[in-house]
């Protein structure tokens, strides 16, 4: 297997061919915030938090969705990037209705973690207070769209790993929402196998188990990666 050598914030790293810039950044031991990315799912490059600067061109590229190449040099922590990341998190908070204090995922929420990591304690942009729905029609799970950040992890895990494709994105722009079936109540969609993978991968408290109340959500976000390596490499690490 051939290897690519590149630098991350000046540090030299080697990654196997086929690796992404995010793999390289992690190999260098650098922490990069991510929200839409999840190991084991195809990358979409939508949350823009993992943008890195290509040192020679100055272009910004999503680390999760860009292939690492020989001789690349990337910067991950420029003041400008940190500024943009903070603003992106502000935009996430302002476009939904995120109230940590009584959220099921409080303390186990990636949006919350990212906000702490980028130092965002309030949004300078006005909160939009969108009028969204809660769907508790499924016997075991529920989806609260107020907390959804449209990362599409649920869509991808259901399509790529479970193969049920219950979820998709409807509408567009600020009107986008995650839908089940033909925008039906989740509980009525026969394609759903109730496997719970969407609950596990959801970075926030948008999709949760009905048994859980405030701050009780536990998520197993390694599940897609484990299942994928079992399926593709026949290596079972999910004992």
């Amino acid at each position, binding site marked *: 297997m051939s290897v690519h050598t590149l630098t991350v914030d000046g540090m030299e790293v080697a990654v196997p061919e086929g690796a992404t810039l995010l793999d390289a950044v992690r190999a260098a031991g650098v922490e990069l915030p991510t929200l839409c990315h999840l190991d084991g799912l195809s990358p979409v490059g*939508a949350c823009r938090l993992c943008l890195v600067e290509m040192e020679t061109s100055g272009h910004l590229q999503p680390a999760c969705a860009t292939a690492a190449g020989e001789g690349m040099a990337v910067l991950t922590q420029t003041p400008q990037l940190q500024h943009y990341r903070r603003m992106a998190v502000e935009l996430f908070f302002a476009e939904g209705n995120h109230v940590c204090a009584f959220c099921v995922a409080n303390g186990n929420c990636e949006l919350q973690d990212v906000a702490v990591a980028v130092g965002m304690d309030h949004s300078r*942009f006005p909160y939009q207070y969108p009028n969204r729905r809660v769907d508790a029609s499924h016997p075991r799970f529920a989806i609260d769209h107020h907390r959804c950040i449209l990362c599409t992890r649920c869509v991808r895990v259901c399509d790529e790993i479970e193969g049920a494709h219950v979820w998709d994105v409807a509408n567009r*722009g600020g009107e986008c929402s995650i839908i089940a079936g033909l925008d039906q109540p989740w509980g009525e969609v026969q394609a759903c196998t109730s496997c719970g993978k969407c609950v596990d991968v959801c970075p926030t408290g948008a999709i949760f188990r009905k048994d859980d109340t405030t701050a009780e959500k536990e998520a197993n976000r390694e599940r897609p990666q484990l299942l994928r390596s079992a399926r593709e490499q026949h290596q079972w690490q999910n004992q």
Partner: protein
Amino acid sequence: MAATPQLQLRCCAASGCRSAGSAALQAALLAARDQLGGAAEAVTIKPVGCLRLCGRGPLVALDRRGGDGQEPSAGSTELYAELTPEQAPALLAAATGLGEAPTAQRLDPAHPFFALQKPVVLEGCGVVNPESIDDALAHGTYAQLRRVLLECTPEQVRDQVKRSGLRGRGGAGYPSGLKWDTVALQPPGPRYVVCNADEGDPGAFMDRSVLESDPHRLIEGMAIAAYAVGAEQGYVYVRAEYPLAIERLRLALRQARGKGLLGSGIAGSSFNLRLEVRVGAGAYVCGEETALLASIQGQRGTPRPRPPYPAQKGLWDAPTLINNVETLTSIPVILREGGDWYASIGTEGSKGTKVFALSGAVANTGLVEVPMGTTLRTVVQTIGGGVPGADGPDGGVKAVQTGGPSGGCIPAHLLDTPVDYESLKALGSMMGSGGLVVMGETTSMPEVARHFMRFSVNESCGKCVPCRAGTVQLAHLLDRFVERRATLADLERLEELCTMVGATSLCGLGQAAPNPVLSTLRYFRQEYQAACRDPDQCEPLDACVLQEVTR
């Protein structure tokens, strides 16, 4: 072939003139011809594509000599505008020398609007019957395709395109020859060629006019491109808002297949090409190439990060060449006259001609093709005639908007800027696809910026957060300026967010969405400042007064 007629009436049947009643006019002309009889019977009445001055349709051109298949010279053609069906007999009578022409409707072909144009892409536009492949063939369409298939290797074709210096006319201006090479030189396997006819910029109607006026030339250009990159399957992606263009394109494709100019073993060669039309469904973002590919494959039109570029991984992960209508329509002429000929037109960095759709507060609205490097002043004032009823050095022009929602507003004092990719970019605007909207002195710039931002909010696909949520916040901020309740802190936030959305959005739509704000801030900042309510910080500028007048 029938004897070439001495008298010919070319009636514009493109959608601009259609909406002004060209179909009724043409029917009236045909009826009048039957009624008048005699000399009038020798007059050919032919539907053609766009005759350029769309604002004054329906337009009819009268050619007095059309001998030996030669095009009539300019001096022998008369042009009439805004004709009613009632005037049809008079026009025919005048044509045959039996009466007075409706002089009030007569246009001067020597007017700069016509005289300063250089038709290259629009060569056949207004000349050929868009619904007749025989007419297209009689005017030389498909001759280059046949020649190329017989005489040239794909490398030779690409070489001519490289020599021409042609750059993509969809907006970004990427060198076409380079793109063709990239696709052609991918590892062996299937390839696709795609024509982007999803012309969505408000104020742009160049591609629609080409599709409605000369579809065979586009098909020829596409077939040559497919040969040059080794594609055997292609798609034309047209926006659904252009029903006439779709109808004519589909007809043209059927005719071309019927003549063996598409399909298997084209024109006796071993080259095969299948072309299909794919109709959009109302999504501006599908003009972005990766979104367009998703839409062709029946998916939501959301873009994906590049690289890999479509030239490497496009439709069904195969190398895919995507060019817009104007780019592909330029190809047959480039091959006929040679790449060097094309490169002799225009400027150092921007070769050839560019088609503009001129509209807004301007006397002459319509389709204009001029050499690259022509100044905006020539286009807007000399060709366009400036703002109706206004005079002064800048002819009542306050700004010219280029590049649609991705472009910017260029102020009147910069009208002497030559139109080319680099100059427009340096001014904070962009070439875009070619819409030029003239704005008069009463136009409020924060309102213009909000107009475009609302457009972007509406058209954002919603995939990435800077565009989905950032444009919404920007539109709200702009509301405060339009409603004159902003603060200087809002101004700061506006600029900061514009920078962030531009730098971090996933695709061109989001990256360019702040441009109308940034360019109006650059040239008309006082209008934003005047909209701030902090009384001690609002300077009593002219703009304050101006806005009061315009509201």
